[in-house]
C-alpha cells in the first residue's frame, strides 16, 4: 500500500513537471499552431535566470521567489521577440515554423554555451524545499509539492485569463476564427504577440521549477521538448483540460511502468501507448470546435 501511495505521488509529480513544460506549448502550439521547437530553450532561459539570480541574491529562498516572475518576463520577452522577428511571417506555413524555430533553438543553445560555459550548473534549493513531509509511511518531497502547486497555480491563472479577461476573449476569438476576429476590430497581430509572450513566459516558469530537480545546461530543453509536444498532441491541440489530464495520466503511467520494469522499457511502452491512442483518436482527447472551414 505504501508503495502504491508513494508511487502515485511520484506519478503525479512527474505529471506536474510535464504539465508545467507543456502548458506554455498549449498556447503557442495548441492555440496558435506554431510548432515552436525553441520552447525548450525558453525553459532553459528560465533556469539560467534562476542561476544568475542566485549568484547575486545569496538567499536561495528569495532568489527563487524573484526568479519566478523574472523568468516569466525574460522567457516571455524572448518569445515575443521571436514572434515579431520570424514567426509572424510564417503563420500560414505551420511546418516551416518547425524548421525555423529548430534553428533558433540551436542558436540559443550555442549562445547559452558561450555565456554560461558548456558544463552544466546547479542552483541550491531553499532549505525548506530539500526536506519532505511524511504522512504515515508515505513521503511527500517538498520540492515536488512545490512544483505541483506551481503547475496548478499556472493552470488556474491561465484559465482565468482566457475565460474572464478581455485579452482572453480576444485570444479565443483569434484562435477560433482569425478573419472574423480581424473584421470585428481585434488587432490580431498584437494578440498573437501577447499570446506568444504568455506561452513562452510559462516555459520560463517551468525552467525555474526544473532547477529544483536537476542540473541546468544548454541542452536541458531538448530533454523535455518531445514530452511537451506529446502532452499537447495527446491532450487535443489547444485544449487546456486535455493537457492537464494527459500530463498527469502520462506521469502516472510512466512511474508505474518504471516501477515494474525499467526506465528505458517504460519510455518505450509509453510511446507505443501514445501511438496506439492517436490511431484511435487522432484528434487527441479533446478537440476544439471552430467556425473555420479547415
Amino acid at each position: 500500500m505504501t508503495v502504491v501511495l508513494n508511487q502515485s505521488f511520484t506519478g503525479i509529480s512527474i505529471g506536474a513537471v510535464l504539465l508545467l513544460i507543456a502548458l506554455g506549448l498549449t498556447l503557442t502550439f495548441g492555440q496558435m499552431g506554431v510548432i515552436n521547437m525553441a520552447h525548450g530553450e525558453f525553459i532553459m532561459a528560465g533556469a539560467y535566470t534562476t542561476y544568475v539570480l542566485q549568484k547575486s541574491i545569496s538567499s536561495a529562498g528569495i532568489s527563487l521567489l524573484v526568479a519566478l516572475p523574472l523568468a516569466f518576463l525574460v522567457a516571455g520577452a524572448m518569445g515575443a521577440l521571436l514572434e515579431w522577428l520570424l514567426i509572424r511571417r510564417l503563420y500560414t506555413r505551420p511546418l516551416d515554423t518547425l524548421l525555423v524555430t529548430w534553428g533558433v533553438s540551436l542558436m540559443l543553445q550555442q549562445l547559452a554555451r558561450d555565456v554560461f560555459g558548456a558544463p552544466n550548473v546547479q542552483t541550491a534549493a531553499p532549505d525548506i524545499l530539500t526536506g519532505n513531509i511524511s504522512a504515515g509511511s508515505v513521503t511527500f518531497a517538498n520540492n515536488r509539492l512545490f512544483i505541483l502547486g506551481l503547475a496548478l497555480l499556472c493552470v488556474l491563472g491561465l484559465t482565468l485569463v482566457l475565460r474572464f479577461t478581455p485579452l482572453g476573449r480576444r485570444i479565443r476569438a483569434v484562435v477560433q476564427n482569425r478573419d472574423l476576429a480581424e473584421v470585428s476590430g481585434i488587432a490580431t497581430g498584437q494578440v498573437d504577440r501577447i499570446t506568444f509572450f504568455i506561452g513562452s513566459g510559462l516555459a520560463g516558469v517551468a525552467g525555474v521549477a526544473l532547477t529544483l530537480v536537476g542540473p541546468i545546461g544548454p541542452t536541458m530543453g531538448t530533454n523535455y521538448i518531445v514530452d511537451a509536444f506529446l502532452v499537447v498532441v495527446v491532450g487535443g491541440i489547444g485544449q487546456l483540460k486535455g493537457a492537464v489530464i494527459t500530463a498527469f495520466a502520462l506521469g502516472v503511467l510512466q512511474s508505474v511502468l518504471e516501477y515494474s520494469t525499467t526506465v528505458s522499457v517504460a519510455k518505450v511502452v509509453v510511446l507505443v501507448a501514445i501511438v496506439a491512442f492517436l490511431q484511435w483518436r487522432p484528434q487527441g482527447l479533446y478537440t476544439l470546435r471552430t467556425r473555420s472551414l479547415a
Partner: protein
Amino acid sequence: MSGLSISRRGLLAGISAVGASAALSACGAKTGTEAASGSGAKADTSGSTVKVGLLNSLSGTMAISEVTVHNSLLLAIKEINASGGVLGKKLKPISQDGASDWPTFAEKAEALITDDKVAATFGCWTSASRKAVKPVFERYKSLLFYPVQYEGLEESPYIFYIGATTNQQIVPALDYLKKQGLTKLYLVGSDYVFPRTANKIIKAYAKAKGLTVVGEDYAPLGSTEFSTIVNKVKGSGADAVFNTLNGDSNVAFFKEYKSAGLTAKSLPVLSVSIAEEEVKSIGTQYLEGQLTAWNYYETTPGAANKKFVAAYQAAYGKDKPTSDPMEAAYISVYLWKAMVEKAGSFDVAKVKAASDGIVFDAPEGKVTVDGATQHVYKTARIGKVGSDGLIEEVWNSGKPIKPDPYLKGYSWASGLS
C-alpha cells in the same frame, strides 16, 4: 490561427525526426581513410615541438567531469614544458571536444592522429567513449592514455590505463561494505557499458561472498528523473546503495535521495564516479557523509600531492578541488614522458617496450607501470564526504595493488568476460 493543416501523425514524425537528428548525424560520421599499412600513423617530431592530443568532453552531460581532466592535462604539459620538455622538445597540446558523444570521440581521435600527427593522446572518461576510440587507436597504432577508473575486462596494446581497474576500486569497495556489515545492496547506474559491467562483477562477488543484491536499476545517461528509482530503493530493504551513475545524473539522483528523506546514516550510498569536483557542483548538503571509492583524494597526505594541489589551484583558482581522475590525467603525461625518455624516442613501439617498471612519485603515492597489462599499480582508498566538500579517507589498502583487469586472481570472477 485557423486551419492547422497538418496531421498529428505527420507532426509527431517530424518532431521525433528532428529530435533524433543529432544521433543520426553522428551515425553518419566518416569512418576515415585506411591507415597506411605497416607501422601506422607517424607522429610529427621533426620540429622543435611535439604535438600531443587532448580528447575530453568540453560540452554536454559529461563536461561537468571532463573539463577538470582537461585542465589537469594542460597543467602537466605546462610544467613539463617549463622544465625543458620531452627529449628537448616542447609539447604542444591540441584539444578536441568529444562533446559527450561517442561517435564524435572516434571522429576527433582520428583527426588528432591523422591530421595533427600527435605523438600520444590523453583523455576520454566514459567507457563508451573509450570503446568508441579503441579501434581508431589500434588501427593507426597510436597511443591513448586513459585517466579514469573503469570496469576492467579490457586490454588494448595501444591504451595505457592510468585509472583504477576493478580490483583496485570496486572489489576493495565491496570488501569495505561487507566489513561494515552492509550486506544488502541496491545497484543504481547509468545505462551504458561501465555500470552494466561493474554490476555484473558486483553480482558475481555478491553470490560468492554472501552479499545480496536486492535491486538493480539503470537510468539513461543524462537522465534527470529519479523519483521512481529512489522510491524503489527506499522500499527495497537495502543496507547500502552502490552508485555507478555518471555525470550530472548524480545531481538529480542525490537531490531526489535527500527529498525522499534518505541520508548517509539511514542508507549510505557508495559512489565510484563522484569525486571532489562533482561533490562541489552537486552540493555538499546532498552528499555529506556518503562514501566514495578512489585511489586519490585532495586530502591524501604527501609532499607530491601538496605540490600538485598548490599548482592546480594557482592555475585554476583557489576554490578548485582536485580529484582522482584529474590526478591520474596529470600523472599520465609524466608517465608518458618517462617512457619516451627511457626509450629515447617518440616511436610508439619503442615507448611501449620501455613502459614496464616505470615508477613515478605521484600525488597518490608511488605508482608503477605494469608493462604486461599496461595498467598501473594503485592504492585503493575509501573516503567519506565531509561538510567542507572534501573527501576524508576512512580506509586504504596499505600498499599499491597489482592491476588485474580480467580478475584472473579471483575465483568468483571466473565466469566473467
